[in-house]
């Protein structure tokens, strides 16, 4: 199993979620994050003071999937989350050794 972590633009969430459900991914976890990268931020001016805001609001999506589903998952996310502009985000894949469903105690594949 793998944990697929994607950093995306906030307004893309619903599309990505739908694409993943279509794949048969039954669940995911979303976190509001701030991203720093190539994408330029904006400046805010309060009376005298100017602030360069380089951290931009992004969403982090974490999906635990069976290894064989990883590629499909990546495709689904890339296609739906892409706008073609700087700041679209990243996808990271890390190993997942075990998964447990708290309610039932089911393990690994059954837990997803």
């Amino acid at each position: 199993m793998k944990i697929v972590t994607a950093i995306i633009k906030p307004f893309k969430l619903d599309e990505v979620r739908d694409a993943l459900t279509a794949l048969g991914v039954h669940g995911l976890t979303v976190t509001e994050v701030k991203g720093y990268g190539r994408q330029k931020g904006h400046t805010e001016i309060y009376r005298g003071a100017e602030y360069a805001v380089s951290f931009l609001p992004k969403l982090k999506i974490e999906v635990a999937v069976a290894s064989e589903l990883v590629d499909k998952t990546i495709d689904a996310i890339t296609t739906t989350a892409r706008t073609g502009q700087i700041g679209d985000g990243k996808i990271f894949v890390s190993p997942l050794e075990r998964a447990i469903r708290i309610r039932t105690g089911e393990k690994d594949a059954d837990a997803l």
Partner: protein
Amino acid sequence: MMFRLTRSAVASIIAGAAVLAQAAPAFAGNAPTPSAGDTAWMLTSSLLVLMMSVPGLALFYGGLVRTKNMLSILTQTFAIVALMGVLWTIYGYSLSFGDGGPLNSYIGGFNKLFLKGVDASSTAPTFTPGHVIPEYAYFVFQMTFAMITPALIIGAFAERMKFSAVMLFTVLWSTIIYFPLAHWVWGVADPNAIVDAATELAAAGTEEAKKAAQDKIDGILASVGWIAGGLAPWMKGTGALDFAGGTVVHINAGIAGLVGAIMVGKRIGHGREAMPPHALTMSMIGASLLWVGWFGFNAGSNLEANGTTALAFVNTMVATAAAGLSWLLTEWAVKGKPSLLGLISGAVAGLVAVTPASGFAGPVGSLVLGLIVSPICLFFVSKVKNFFGYDDALDVFGVHCIGGITGAIATGLLVAPELGGVGITDYTNIGENFAGKYVMSTQMIAQITAVIATLLWSGIGSAILYKVVDALVGLRPAPDQEREGLDIAEHGERAYNY
């Protein structure tokens, strides 16, 4: 709190036979009674000024600090209001508006400690001979001014002063700086007394009768606050015009704030870390309530509900609108974007500037005043502040002191009838509806004197008091506490637990 009756006011009074009838006895020395309308307006005005402090000012300031210091601003503001309410009742009113006897030009007396001798039937004079309001109404209206003035100061050293220091400073500052200053500027003569004496003079047949009456008049005019009466030699008896408190409230608080900001030092991270306002929504609510409440502050300062009250109301409306718009447009032109913070800062600057002029200028004069005050203040809060590098966190100096000075000077000009102003009044001139003589040069000298006197008295005095407070309880919390935020460090609470 104007200490001269505007001619238009008199005019409107003289006009109404009914009122004259009621006014007449006053000249004969009988006690006039308060009208329900004036009483209703003064009580409404008093609660409006309270609303300016809490929640108005507290939110305007609170929205501009970082989340971790939100409660410290709210607590300081509310606590200062409560504290001043108690001090004002015990001795503040007496020191400000009591009879100072021989020292009366400099300070009130102890004759009204704990409201001694005041009851529900006691009255206070207004600016229209023959009119009075319940003294309790006058007492509480003035109390609300004493509440908001020290609260204005805290914006300058926001996010970095100990609560205990703020409270102690407030006690000392109000006692030593505010109460005397209020007396200097607002310690005025009872119009009824002047008019009665002037009537005697007119009626006097014999020489000594004339002399006696004249002496009486002189005595009355001499026993007033020195700024109000123009008693400094170079003022030649021309007092400064300050309708609702440009000097006593705004210049006074503004300079005290600047001195405090410098003496307590910059906030940790100032200039390096970004410190954006944590909730402009709150600042907008605050600014709006300040505007709404300010009508009590300015129009209430006429102490009656008449045509002049309506004029002060209109001026407050027009100057604020113009100043808000002017700041917005200036910023749009200069910085490229019109911001809400700019808009509301401009509105507040306009309110401050029109305060001393509100009952003297005409609406068009106020419109112009509003348009010019914003660029001036914007220049100070952006350029001047950065140039000198002091950390006047919420721009108390840039907006209140600078705006107050602009207004105080402008008042000397805008009162001129040629500029649509209402002109000067002289209660001894009962023949021509108390028409007084306006001389620009003398009037400007009076205005400038009031400004400088306030800057010196409050600036130097505050510096000393900060030192004293620092020695007694210390001004500043430990760096870690400041970093954690005053809410948790000083008050053990957090503003939001979403």
